[in-house]
């Protein structure tokens, strides 16, 4: 396998725990990620799966350095980026992009779609031929050109998420973090968005971190999977190996809990006492 794009060692992230904030003074820190080691190979799609509280979103935000690790290191193309300042990160932003969960909240209601897609281009020295580049980005995600002058509220959920993808991919980044990008969408729209991302990732040779709570979606899209629980990695392996032969009980439980759209009279029977 090629040299990894990301190499993560002993990664810990601690965040202020607002539920335990005293009346006066700072909230105590709670360790969300408790030491993670893994590599993300270049040009692959990696699924990061877990239930709420597993720390999967925190991990994603640390990878694109919206959060700073409290310990350990994140190497991107061999360079340690774990403690770079905002200013030092700026030249890297072009290569580290993100697609958000809620396309409503991730698009500013006051900006046109053009302005939204053009923003990262302008900020990263690609402000020339702006019209052309935005048009290209829209075309790539299958949106008509006249959408450039529209606003968020004039789009459907699936169209909004296409804009989110167009914005992230406009810079041709090396890494894209997709954070639960279909969890708010209807199944029919979900299928469209996922097949679009699948196609673009293959065409552009993207490295993708695909955060999801849905193992069914991950199986289709990802080459390897990281299963997380309570801030630790439970199991990480190639997708087929994980699904065909899960090693950990937790992974098996997760798989067994997915209600597949097929009749299974035993599924709801209470577990036989062990």
């Amino acid at each position, binding site marked *: 396998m090629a040299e990894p794009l990301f190499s993560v060692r002993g990664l810990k992230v601690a965040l202020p725990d607002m539920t335990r904030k005293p009346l006066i003074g700072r909230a105590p820190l709670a360790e969300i990620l408790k030491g993670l080691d893994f590599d993300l190979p270049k040009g692959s799609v990696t699924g990061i799966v877990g239930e709420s509280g597993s720390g999967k979103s925190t991990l994603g935000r640390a990878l*694109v350095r*919206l959060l700073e690790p409290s310990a350990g290191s994140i190497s991107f193309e061999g360079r340690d980026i774990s403690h770079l300042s*905002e200013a030092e990160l*700026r030249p890297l*932003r*072009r290569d*580290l*992009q*993100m697609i*958000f*969960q*809620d396309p409503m*909240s*991730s*698009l*500013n*209601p*006051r*900006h046109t779609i053009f302005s939204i897609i053009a*923003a*990262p281009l302008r*900020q*990263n020295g690609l402000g020339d031929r702006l019209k052309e580049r935005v048009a290209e980005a829209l075309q790539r995600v299958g949106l008509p050109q006249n959408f450039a002058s529209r*606003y968020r*509220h*004039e789009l459907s959920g699936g169209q909004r998420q296409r804009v989110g993808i167009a*914005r*992230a991919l406009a810079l041709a980044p090396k890494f894209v973090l997709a954070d639960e990008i279909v969890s708010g969408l209807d199944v029919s729209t979900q299928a469209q968005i996922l097949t679009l991302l699948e196609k673009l990732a293959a065409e552009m040779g993207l490295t993708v971190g695909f955060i999801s709570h849905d193992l069914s979606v991950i199986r289709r899209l990802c080459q390897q999977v990281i299963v997380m629980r309570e801030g630790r990695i439970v199991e990480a392996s190639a997708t087929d190996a994980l699904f065909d032969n899960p090693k950990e009980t937790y992974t098996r439980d997760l798989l067994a809990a997915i209600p597949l759209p097929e009749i299974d009279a035993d599924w709801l029977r209470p577990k036989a006492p062990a």
Partner: protein
Amino acid sequence: MDDARVARRGLSPRLWLAGGWLVLALLATIFAPLIAPQDPLAQDLMLERLPPFWLDGAEPGYWLGTDSLGRDLLSRLIFGGRIAFIVAFAAATSACLLGSALGLIAGYFGGWADRIISRVVDVWMAFPPVLFAILLVAVLGTGLSSVILAIAIIDWTRFCRVIRAEAMSQARMDYVESARIAGYGRIGIMLREVLPNVLPSVVALLSLEMGIAVIVEAILSFVNLSISTDDPTWGGIIAEGRLSIHQAWWVLVFPLITLILTVLSFSQFGEALKARFDPVLR
């Protein structure tokens, strides 16, 4: 479905009524020398306490009657409106700029900036505002600029508190994070992502504040602390009207109605403007 409300685009009657009154009043004051039927300062003891036009004993040309010195009430109201509007625009705009800027910084940056600004606001709001205004004018001396300054100094906190809260909720939006991913710095994000979304509230508050400034100016004139006593002001006319309420009620009632209509129009106009902007938001 959630976007169905967007259709509501037209101007509401509220906007028309409130805006109409404000435009009318504003035009009247701007062209006061052309419009006012009489000289607002001209006294004529032969014409004292003339009633408004529909009552017996009214004189043509003195539509709303005269006060105890025989000065034409309508002309005094029109000229008094000049002071009211100058104070409203200047004081409200200053308070708005100061308060909104600080509120934006406190709300978006948080941390130390927020703690310091919020403390100052808390302390500020502990003063009773009218008393504070009277005190300030007493210290600064009377005059138009003192009144404007006093109102701005007192009322910036109103903007600061509301804009801070809105900026805080904006700061949690994904598009703010998305702008960081795009490579924007903090100031850039504040101006590009946060500011446009708090503007409707700023506009609504600004309009409301203009109404409040009109009231505060009237109160200051009422206690004779505004500008020189010669120039007519709404507060000054009300103060004089109070003395002759039994002989000439109109000298009190008309300026009060004018004042109330104006203040109400400002607040309604602001609300209507905000409502007009809002559907785009959701």
